[in-house]
């Protein structure tokens, strides 16, 4: 009997657990550890944050789904990994701490034969003083409860605008090292559409602020699309979308502090600025979750498993070569830890070998550049591939580990730009590969025959379709395995 333990029940962890359970016989166990009792389909949090969808439509309880599927579930946070076990018992294990109300704080050791770290990000609001909804002065849509709070604040602003007051909405990233610009982008354009629907757009000023060098970077160094006989950068595409909707933008910005109604930020040229707001939705930077690793003797070996930012090191090139020298082949393929061959990291939990967007530092020495995204479709694909590799190993198949390099896979992304079945739109984007490969595609790093984008109502329909399809899949309803990642 083999024990597969998965830390995290986000997109990648949940996908890995679902496929591992499906492919493994009942003699093997699959266990999921997650600090939250629910699964959250995060892409639809945008609609919750606008007030178009209640929280309950984007979350569901994991326990009954896992009970039905034969997956053991622990509502707990992973505290430490012990890949060498103890002196008296060399079975590797993880220590978890319960987050359930009845047993809160109680620790337990879970033995594993294979471990998948799918812990996702720690939302590092504390990196910017005053950032975030927990004691700070800005909002977020990173979790379903954050999004609900944002929707309530939006209602308050709407009432003020109906009374004739002007309101400024500041949307974007709350730190110079943020990723996930795409989510903030979706929120900004959906907000604009919703304010028009509420007939208060003329009272609203929407300002985008981000750490991107140019609009449309999205942490991927931007992308190039074939349009009208030209290969056009996503900067043009995104600026057009913003200008058409009357959104102002501030780029190359590191938010230094958020005070009630005022944000202070630094720009790449070293300039110090401030902007007043009535509503701020600013995403936090991410780091790895605080997870330690110890050897058999109890010595801390976290630096062997984790990079400095807390993400887990896998089969990538972490030699720290200059940005200009990196290659697509530096990116991981199997997501196996180089330190322990039965440990893997998937989704946001793995440490990217380098930035995709050109790293830049301000005149004052502040790093202001996006970090690489690892969410959504690639997360799910990586989770499935790692589950497959582990199943192959358990079943004793002498085959090469399965591979899913982000430099060899594409991603489809649909960014909602207004939710209405007849007048809504969304930006549908397809990018191949996700990580540019300048050896295969010297001009732009990507295949311009496959990389593609357009705005239209069809994209909104696809977004709705994806919402229902992926929730169907996540709930492990009949035929779930046929829904592609």
């Amino acid at each position, binding site marked *: 009997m083999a024990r597969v333990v998965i830390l995290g029940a986000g997109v990648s962890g949940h996908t890995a657990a679902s496929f591992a359970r499906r492919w493994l016989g009942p003699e093997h166990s699959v266990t999921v550890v997650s600090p939250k009792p629910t699964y959250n389909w995060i892409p639809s949090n945008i609609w919750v944050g606008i007030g178009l969808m209640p929280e309950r439509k984007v979350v569901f309880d994991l326990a009954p789904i896992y009970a039905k599927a034969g997956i053991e579930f622990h509502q707990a946070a992973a505290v430490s990994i012990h890949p060498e076990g103890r002196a008296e018992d060399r079975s590797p294990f993880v220590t978890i701490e319960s987050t359930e109300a009845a047993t809160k704080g109680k620790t337990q050791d879970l033995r594993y034969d294979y471990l998948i770290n799918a812990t996702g990000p720690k939302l590092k609001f504390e990196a910017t003083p005053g950032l975030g909804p927990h004691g700070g002065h800005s909002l977020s849509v990173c979790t379903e409860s954050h999004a609900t709070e944002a929707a309530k604040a939006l209602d308050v602003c709407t009432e003020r605008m109906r009374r004739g007051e002007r309101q400024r909405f500041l949307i974007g990233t709350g730190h110079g090292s943020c990723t996930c610009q795409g989510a903030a982008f979706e929120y900004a354009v959906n907000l*604009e559409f919703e304010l*028009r*629907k509420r*007939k*208060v*757009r*003329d009272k609203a*000023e*929407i*300002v985008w602020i981000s750490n991107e060098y140019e609009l449309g970077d999205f942490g991927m160094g931007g992308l190039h699309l074939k349009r009208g006989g030209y290969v056009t950068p996503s900067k*043009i595409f995104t*600026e*057009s979308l*913003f*200008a*058409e*909707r*009357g959104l*102002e*933008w501030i780029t190359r910005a590191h938010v230094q502090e958020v005070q009630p109604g005022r944000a202070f930020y630094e720009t790449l040229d070293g300039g110090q600025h401030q902007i007043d707001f009535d509503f701020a939705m600013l995403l936090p930077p991410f780091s790895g979750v605080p997870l330690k690793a110890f050897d058999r003797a109890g010595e801390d070996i976290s630096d062997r498993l984790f990079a400095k930012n807390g993400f887990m090191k896998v089969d990538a090139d972490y030699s720290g070569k200059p940005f200009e020298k990196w290659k697509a082949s530096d990116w991981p393929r199997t997501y196996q830890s180089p330190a322990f061959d039965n440990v893997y990291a998937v989704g946001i939990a793995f440490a990217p070998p380098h930035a995709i967007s050109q790293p830049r530092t301000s005149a004052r020495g502040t790093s202001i550049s996006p970090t690489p995204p690892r969410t959504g*479709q690639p997360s799910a*694909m990586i989770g499935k591939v790692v589950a497959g590799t582990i199943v192959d190993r358990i079943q004793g198949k002498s085959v090469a580990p399965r591979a*899913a390099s982000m430099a*060899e*896979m*594409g*991603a*489809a992304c649909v960014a909602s730009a207004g939710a209405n079945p*007849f*007048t809504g*739109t969304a930006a*549908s984007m*397809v990018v*191949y590969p996700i990580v540019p490969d300048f050896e295969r595609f010297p001009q732009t790093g990507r295949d311009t025959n*496959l990389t*593609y984008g*357009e*705005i*239209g*109502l*069809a*994209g909104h*329909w*696809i977004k709705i379709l994806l919402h229902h399809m992926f929730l169907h899949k996540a709930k492990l309803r009949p035929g779930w395995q046929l829904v*592609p*990642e």
Partner: protein
Amino acid sequence: MEVSTQSEGKPPARDVWKASQSGKFATLPTGWTRFCRIFLPYQIWRFAMINLKMLRIIWKGHH
């Protein structure tokens, strides 16, 4: 900071002059482009085409 203004419930003003005033010099869609974005027969066609493009990418990622 300048921002486009509009009458209640209508889309914001869209003209090249205003976009260029903020120093952004953004490309703006023509009326035809905006019409096509929500023209049902065309969008049904685009729905099929975009799905095919996405499936192609997904297939490439799995093989």
